[in-house]
């Protein structure tokens, strides 16, 4: 489901790809059974292209990667968490529109 600017991350590479990332990083936690996740995916892809080089966009399949969602207390998807310098800046639960995601990303820029 990832667009070319969106990186699929896993429990195994979450630390190097997200926690130790140089750029602010938005992680979209999703699963194949989740309709709202499918609805939000094209918006995340668009933003990935628009913010290329400024914000890193990642997706994590929560069915295949249980450890990271567990660590961040995720029990609803889509959940989008914004990281900067390894720390959580803010998060959004639910399928929101592009303007709300831009507002979220703005908190790390």
């Amino acid at each position, binding site marked *: 489901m990832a667009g070319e600017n969106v990186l699929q991350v896993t429990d195994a590479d979450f630390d190097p790809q997200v926690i130790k990332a140089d750029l602010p990083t938005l992680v979209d936690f999703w699963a194949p059974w989740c*309709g709202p996740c*499918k*609805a939000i995916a094209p918006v995340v892809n668009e933003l990935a292209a628009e913010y290329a080089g400024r914000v890193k966009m990642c997706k994590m399949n929560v069915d295949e990667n249980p450890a990271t969602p567990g660590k961040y207390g995720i*029990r*609803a998807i889509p*959940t989008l968490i914004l990281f900067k310098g390894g720390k959580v800046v803010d998060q959004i639960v639910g*399928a929101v529109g592009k*303007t709300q995601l831009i507002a979220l990303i703005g908190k790390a820029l």
Partner: protein
Amino acid sequence: MASSNYQLVIIGGGPAGLAAGLYAARARLNVILLEKGIPGGQVLVTDWIDNYPGFPEGIAGFELIERMTEQVKRFGLEIQNVEVLHLDLSKPVKTILLEGGDTITCQALIIATGARPNQLGVPGETDLTGKGISYCATCDAPFFRDQEITVVGGGDTAIQEAIYLTKFARLVTVIHRRDALRATRVIQEKAFANDRIKFLWNSEVTRIFGKGGVEGVEVRDTQGKLSIIPVQGVFIFIGIKPNNSFVPKEEIETDHWGFIVTDSEMQTKTIGVMAAGDIRSKKIRQVVTAVGEGAIATLSAEEYLNRL
């Protein structure tokens, strides 16, 4: 701040708004649809729809909306992702104030902003939403595999979702304020026959607690006795409330709960302003009724525009 003018503005991109938009785009009206999130509304979080005609096998809520959106785009409907903050309906030309300060003016307006789930309004609810508290079983149920959870409510949605949740959770305790369910009889029978569903009657949730995630709920029975139920999840289905924060109550008549009153042509008390779908004051709220009302609203708006 920028301002633009349209013949017709539709607020809300659920089934009612998309149907209104389909009719308006096909009528070649100068029209825009404003949606604050992603088109779809409550259907987007509905797992499966078996009562929308034309889909003999049923259809996923997400897919139905995807098809409706594709259809309006085929006829060139303009959709903008923006939230409406306020309406000025005091003049024949209506003014819509958007987040960010831009305005849109229009001759005719259709309000189709729908409704959202009611909250319990108890301590812990806001903080733990998404961390064990949910208003959408199909979105979040798989996180509760082999766990113990509660469902709050006694209507059709609550009991249907409780049954669905037993596919994942080990035990579902339904907490209901009364001593009997309001849900349709067939749904009740299914729930009573399910040994993974337990009922706690005459009880209200007074608090939800947990560190970083739900650990339990505090419940008070009609005698005032408090008890604690340790659970990892709380699913709340206690009805809906209208998305009407931007609707001026002086100019648009609403009922006791804030739903908009219209005539059978979807016309509100303010001429040129229609309402369609779940935001309307009415008894039946279905996808199939919402789309019908959306179509009627646009046809009424068109008639109004022709008289100008």
